[in-house]
């Protein structure tokens, strides 16, 4: 299998008055062609920032402080904004939580889709329209000719997210980054959208990075999963393995805290809450909530290493 995306030692910081906060700390992972990866974590874990920094879309005062993002034989972290624009929305597409981040409320779906095609492909307007209709069919939107003439507000939430997916597909990207694509939707609609994404990744041989807080969704859609905590990946491995046999104490706590994992009437809770970026403890970021925490955990930052079970985890106390 050939590698599609190779993120190495990515570090993203946010400039403050006279210091900088580290939002993403030394994150490395690879994604093969057609592979689906889940980036899981709680709010503030740095999962969205990681996703945005892949396509160099970190908004000020954030900046990529270190590391590289290899894609198509180029390091995206070093590309100029002009060159990056050719990659973004073309070879890599993005799907956001709120469809209205992508859709312009005052333009018809057709105008927006045709514009996107014309920006990246050297085709006539009629051909662009044909491409747009083809993609709308792929996301199961009936009578696309009519739909192209409609405005975003004429669609329901689930339909809008389908249209956003169709727009993401327009340029036949090799990778889709989906940031909480179904968080704003109801469970029944979420299931439909996830179904659709899964099917499209398979038929179009697309890579997918699914950024979400929902381990259940990740376990159903992705092959690999990276669990993030306070800006770092704490566990990385095959989704099945991580979900059925989590290694890192944080992942274990997270899975055990789900209501379906509870044995008695009480849920298993992780004490405390994730530190904010300015207050990450010295050593392992999880040390103040961890039951295994010992000497080294309070002095040295653990590195992501392959553990006995086969997954990678960043923990001093694991073999």
């Amino acid at each position, binding site marked *: 299998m050939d590698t599609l995306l190779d993120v190495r030692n990515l570090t993203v910081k946010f400039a403050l008055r006279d210091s900088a906060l580290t939002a993403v700390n030394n994150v490395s992972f690879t994604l093969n062609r057609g592979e689906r990866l889940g980036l899981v974590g*709680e*709010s503030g874990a740095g999962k969205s920032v990681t996703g945005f920094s892949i396509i160099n879309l970190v908004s000020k005062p954030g900046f990529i402080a270190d590391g590289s993002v290899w894609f198509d034989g180029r390091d995206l972290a070093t590309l100029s904004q002009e060159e990056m624009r050719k990659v973004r929305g073309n070879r890599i597409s993005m799907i956001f939580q709120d469809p209205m981040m992508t859709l312009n409320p005052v333009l018809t779906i057709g105008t927006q889709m045709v514009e996107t095609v014309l920006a990246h492909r050297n085709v006539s307007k009629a051909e662009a329209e044909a491409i747009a209709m083809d993609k709308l069919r792929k996301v199961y939107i009936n009578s696309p000719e009519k739909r192209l003439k409609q405005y975003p507000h004429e669609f*329901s939430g*689930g*339909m809008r997210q389908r249209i956003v997916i169709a727009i993401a597909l327009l340029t036949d990207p090799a990778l889709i980054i989906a940031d909480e694509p179904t968080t704003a939707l*109801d*469970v*029944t*609609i*979420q*299931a*439909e959208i*996830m*179904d659709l994404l*899964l099917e499209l990744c398979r038929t179009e041989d697309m890579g997918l990075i699914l950024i979400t*807080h*929902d*381990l*259940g*969704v990740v*376990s*159903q*859609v992705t092959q690999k999963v990276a669990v993030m905590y306070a800006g770092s990946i704490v566990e990385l491995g095959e989704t099945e393995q991580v*979900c*059925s046999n989590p290694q890192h104490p944080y992942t274990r*706590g*997270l*899975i055990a*805290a*789900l*209501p*379906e994992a*509870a044995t008695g*009437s*009480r*849920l*298993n*809770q*992780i*004490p405390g*809450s*994730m530190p904010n970026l300015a207050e990450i403890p010295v050593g392992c970021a999880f040390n103040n909530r961890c039951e295994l925490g010992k000497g080294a955990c309070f002095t040295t930052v653990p590195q992501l290493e392959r553990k006995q079970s086969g997954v990678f985890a960043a923990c001093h106390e694991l073999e």
Partner: protein
Amino acid sequence: MGKTPLLHIQNVVKHFDISGGLLDQLAFSGGKIVRNRSVVHAVNNVSLDIMEGETLSVVGESGCGKSTLARVVIGLYPPTAGEIHYRGQRMDNLQGTARRPFRTKAQMVFQDPYASLNPRMRVRQILEEPVRFHKPELSGDQVREKIAEVMDQVGINPVWAERYPHEFSGGQRQRISIARALVLDPEFIVADEPISALDVSIQAQVLNLMMDLQEQRNLTYLFISHDLSVVEHISDRVAVLYLGTLCELATSEELFENPRHPYTKALLSAIPRIGKGFQHIKLSGDVPTPIKLPTGCVFHGRCPNANDRCRQEVPVARTLESGSVVACHGVEEGRI
């Protein structure tokens, strides 16, 4: 059951008129000026009993009227029709002083921990306000004592009373919100999606807290949520709402083991769970708007088992042998 329920909700209907002023309502159609009124049918003819000490959850998707139902029960909205009885006494028509005893007995916890605490008030002020209002006979020391006790109980150090809400994390704010509901020593709490804005590891903490408090104080919960796995864990009984209409009401075990209504089945199959395959019942179409309710059964447009009767006749909630209450022609006829 025989016992008087703590709370008895009888045929409650809540409509919102969203047609605006008189001028906005007028429209020109067919050569005549007509007056159009648009009404949101948020809750339609819902009846429920809540027993003392139990947790009754109301689940459904966005727009199904579950939050509206919660607000009608607590008295934030007057019902358009129907009655609400608390310990056998009718509540919904009481106002002002007559309502006061109910206000100390029933309190509410809200969804958004960032919007539910007044950002300009200190935690102490937020917690003192209900006590000072309802129990003016208490001295300053007694009030402070009460607040410290409740803060302690919800896991917020009383030393932090002088802080403002923005100095706390989401989970801590939700604890403060729960503390505000508890300072009046209520017996009934309406919790409107109390954990849906929180992270997974914090959700567990808050849920455990709510269950501990229930045990210590013998509280009765009306728990509103869209998260079925949470509901399964904490509820004694569950009511499923679709477009403001009650589809199914059953004990938690019964509902999750043996769902009867086609909508309940679809909803349960769509929960993403770790280690379970991805097999969900596909529903066709979208949720209709509550402004123009479908004829017949509200679910017929998306139901895989709908027939002509479902399209024309509104199904009545019936109690099955298992004790579940289901409003479905298919179940009644034995087709499903």
